[in-house]
């Protein structure tokens, strides 16, 4: 019992303290993409009343309307409150599809809304396609070795979260600012109390979570005192320090600092491998790294096959030079942040 074509596709526009979250533009672009598939209208939904500046930022992404869930001034709503308000508004206005970027918040709100409305939720969608009058989504199953195409049956609103890897902030051209529709929404009370927000220093961050990692290999065992230089380079880059298995077995780094198949699997954006030849077990652990830089004496080392930039040289000469070039304080611009 698929609904007729048309209808509205809503994307939740995540905000962080009155500003758009980095996924908001991508979610808006996704709404437009799916709305074209369904021959419907692309809409956004946002908590609170959006400022003019924010609407202008979103204009190129082709949303026709933005539903603003009105709320009393005060602390931003908790995810629980957001889910409650969004479910009520979605039940009232009955959009065809509700899209969320698969951020921690997006995943939770999507699940809450789907559970409240008793509607089908497809998570971590990679792509969408028309299925007759309805819509199907493609997602990874079985641990990533296959993709299943899943269709919604039953009445809309349907709910989906979109994989962050699939999202893309495609511009629709210079567009008009979306029409804002104010919606009354009951957020209710929050039952969990946020006590504090804090952050883990980059160097204490678990290797599997760190965005920048400096890895050190076997040569350091010959000159253990120079580990301080490597640690300082890592510090100045705002990076976590890791090592190959040999270094950990040699007792220079604790077990949880080991990179590789039998240690931590990195998900870093940048990995600087120093004196690491790149054995297959090590390379398994760095498979997901986006940009790999390497310093190694041996030009034939396997690590250079994967490296975006490789330096053939002695790390005990290159790293002190690099340390001198990087500003002592990461905030002072040495890391470019």
């Amino acid at each position: 019992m698929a609904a007729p074509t048309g209808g509205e596709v809503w994307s939740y526009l995540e905000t962080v303290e009155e500003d758009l979250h980095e996924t908001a533009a991508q979610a808006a672009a996704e709404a437009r993409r799916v709305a074209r598939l369904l021959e419907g209208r692309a809409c956004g939904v946002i908590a609170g009343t959006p400022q003019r500046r924010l609407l202008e930022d979103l204009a190129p992404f082709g949303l026709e309307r933005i539903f603003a869930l009105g709320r009393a001034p005060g602390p931003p709503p908790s995810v629980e409150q957001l889910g409650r308000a969004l479910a009520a508004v979605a039940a009232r206005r009955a959009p065809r599809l509700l899209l969320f970027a698969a951020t921690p918040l997006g995943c939770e709100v999507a699940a809450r809304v789907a559970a409240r409305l008793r509607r089908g939720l497809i998570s971590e969608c990679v792509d969408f396609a028309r299925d007759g009058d309805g819509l199907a989504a493609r997602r990874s199953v079985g641990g990533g070795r296959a993709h299943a195409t899943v269709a919604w049956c039953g009445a809309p609103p349907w709910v989906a979260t979109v994989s962050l890897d699939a999202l893309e902030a495609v511009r629709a051209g210079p567009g008009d600012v979306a029409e804002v529709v104010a919606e009354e929404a009951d957020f209710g009370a929050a039952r969990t109390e946020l006590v504090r927000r804090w952050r883990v220093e980059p160097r204490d961050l678990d290797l599997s979570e760190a965005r920048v990692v400096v890895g050190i290999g076997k040569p350091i065992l010959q000159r253990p005192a120079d580990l301080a230089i490597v640690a300082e380079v890592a510090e100045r880059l705002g990076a976590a320090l890791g090592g190959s298995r040999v270094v950990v077995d040699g007792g220079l780094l604790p077990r949880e600092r080991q990179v590789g198949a039998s240690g931590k699997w990195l998900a870093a954006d940048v990995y600087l491998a120093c004196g690491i030849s790149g054995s297959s077990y090590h390379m398994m652990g760095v498979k997901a790294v986006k940009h790999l830089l390497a310093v190694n004496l041996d030009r034939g080392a396997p690590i250079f096959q994967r490296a975006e930039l490789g330096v053939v040289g002695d790390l005990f000469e290159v790293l002190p030079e690099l340390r001198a070039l990087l500003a002592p304080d990461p905030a002072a611009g040495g890391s470019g942040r």
Partner: protein
Amino acid sequence: MRLVVCLKQAEEAVFVRWSPPFASFTRRYADPTGLAALEHALRLAAGAAQVVALTVGPPDAERVLAKAAMMGVERAVRVWGERLAGADSLAVAMVLAAAARRLDGDLLLLGARSSDTGTEAVGAAVAELLDLPLVTRVVGIERDADGARLLVHRKLPRGERETHRVPCPAVVTIDPGGDEPRYCAPGWMRRTRRLAVETLRPEELGVADGEPRLVVLEVAPPRPRAKVGVQVAGLSLKDKLAVMRGGRKQDSAEERIIEAPAPQAARRLKAALERLLAARS
């Protein structure tokens, strides 16, 4: 105090042949995020509270409950009905919520995101169905000073953390980035002999789920979504894939690998690092 931990038997395709004759091998294992949740529960209980393991799955899923018994669980419940095969996350959440209500726990713990399907939806749906407070992606749980409430630490991307205060009963979903599940020696299998798994059917729990909400149309080899804003014409297959996945074409070895004196090499490294770190933030 009673802690209820939801465990899952995950299923992963180890090998799939997509051309005829079609074949696939799957491996079933205890989902590690669920085991991480169990570890948190056992530490919080510290022998003073009862920890109950709960799973939704066919008889084979009792192997997961046996693993839980090895880790120290004394009571285990399994719910299964034929209609639950291939059920969506909401259907599973309805069964878990009904079972958790019957078990009357003070805290319900789940893995935040299973390693096979990873919908990250079940925990939030259970909290919604039970109308309980929820904290997701938790890496640490401790009792608050007043003894009645809990302080839970939540992990967000890029080293961001949040601490929440929650009244019990509550639901938490556990991120596997916290403490690792305890080691189980093979000899501890004898602990599983005492474990009598209670089996229930969804109907006995009063779960009345109607028509399915989702239907699987096709299963095919994985492929990433092609990005719109990138040029892939004229690239090798390997580079095409790299670019479509959001990476970039690899330069030739001559461009990428430099043999230069240390000061010069360090400058190149610094420039590359600065470019990458600036693009990231």
